[in-house]
């Protein structure tokens, strides 16, 4: 019996020994700002129509994305990734606030934002504000946005915009910048450091 066990064990060990060495880990995506950058407090309107300030986010880390509801794929893809981040956070999911800031105040009213973010997760926050309020906030984050007319329709336009995602720490400072398309599990790993 023991002999059999020994034989099996040594066979398994041999299998283990034959495995090639683990490849060196690739660097984790996400640019960490060291030190985190303080942001000026701002107030926009949330998807319930109430005023919402940056200072309202303090106390918990936040993940922020700038986009617009008529965006055909970049924005729904990113919000879908935020959903995935939230589910990967598991028990810590409620410790992070997810925020979508519209760069299209003309079309993205609070009501429209409520339907949009609600389609992804009822806890996600949508923010909107006119260009005068939005422009300085976007600049602080390093976000570019520009409406571009579409020829096929007299009224239709798209908005070119920076598609990075931003993690804020508990103090509301800009802590990490993620490129568009950063895998959700990398975001989760980075965000856990802020919890």
């Amino acid at each position, binding site marked *: 019996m023991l002999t059999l066990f020994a034989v099996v064990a040594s066979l398994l060990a041999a299998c283990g020994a034959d495995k090639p060495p683990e490849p060196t880990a690739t660097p984790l995506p996400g640019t960490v700002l060291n030190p985190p950058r303080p942001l000026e407090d701002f107030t926009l309107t949330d998807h319930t129509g109430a005023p919402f300030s940056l200072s309202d986010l303090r106390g918990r880390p936040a993940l922020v994305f700038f986009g617009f*509801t*008529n965006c*055909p*794929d*970049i924005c*729904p*893809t990113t*919000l*879908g990734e935020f*959903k995935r981040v939230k589910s990967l956070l598991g028990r810590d999911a409620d410790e992070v606030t997810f925020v979508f800031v519209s760069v299209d105040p003309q079309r993205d009213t609070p009501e*429209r934002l409520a*339907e*949009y973010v609600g*389609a*992804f997760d009822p806890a996600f926050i949508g923010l909107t504000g006119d260009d005068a309020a939005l422009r300085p906030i976007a600049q602080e984050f390093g976000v*570019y946005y520009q409406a*571009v007319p*579409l*020829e*096929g*329709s007299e*009224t*239709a336009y*798209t908005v*070119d*915009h*920076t*598609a*990075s995602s931003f993690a804020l720490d508990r103090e509301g400072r800009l802590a990490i910048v993620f*490129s*568009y*398309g950063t895998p959700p599990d990398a975001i989760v790993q980075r965000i856990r450091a802020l919890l």
Partner: protein
Amino acid sequence: MIYRWRAALRAAPFFMLIAGLALAGCAGDEPAPTPTAPADTAESTVTARDVWVRATPVDGAGQMTGAYLTLSNTGAQDERLIAVRAEGAGAVEIHETTHEGEIMHMQPVDGIDVPAGGEVALAPGGLHLMLLDLAEPLAPGDTVMLTLEFASGLTVPVEAEVRPLAE
């Protein structure tokens, strides 16, 4: 005897011509196309698969959304998609998402080449169709009829399924 040989030789081209015409006639004798198929799509060399449209996020008319598909050209000539029509949309444009560093741009393109024997995929993050001025919002499970128009005059109708906004 010799006289007949010479005559035969002189007649040969004539007979060859007759034979050639007869053979051409045989070659042209294809089975008739099925009566219901219009001539230019009876043997459509361009097919589309995985045709889908993203659901619209909110209620109300006048929205826009993206559509995606993979085009396959099994024919011997190159094709170029130059226009698309969609039932229920005021207009359809062909777009490409590009990026300059972190800034995303979406710009219209004149057409998409589908080379002979080749495939082109329109997918999120790259080439896509923009359906503009939708008469009604689109919900997952709905279908949208698209007509793909190619520079050669070829038109291909395809049915797109509406998929959820996010997986």
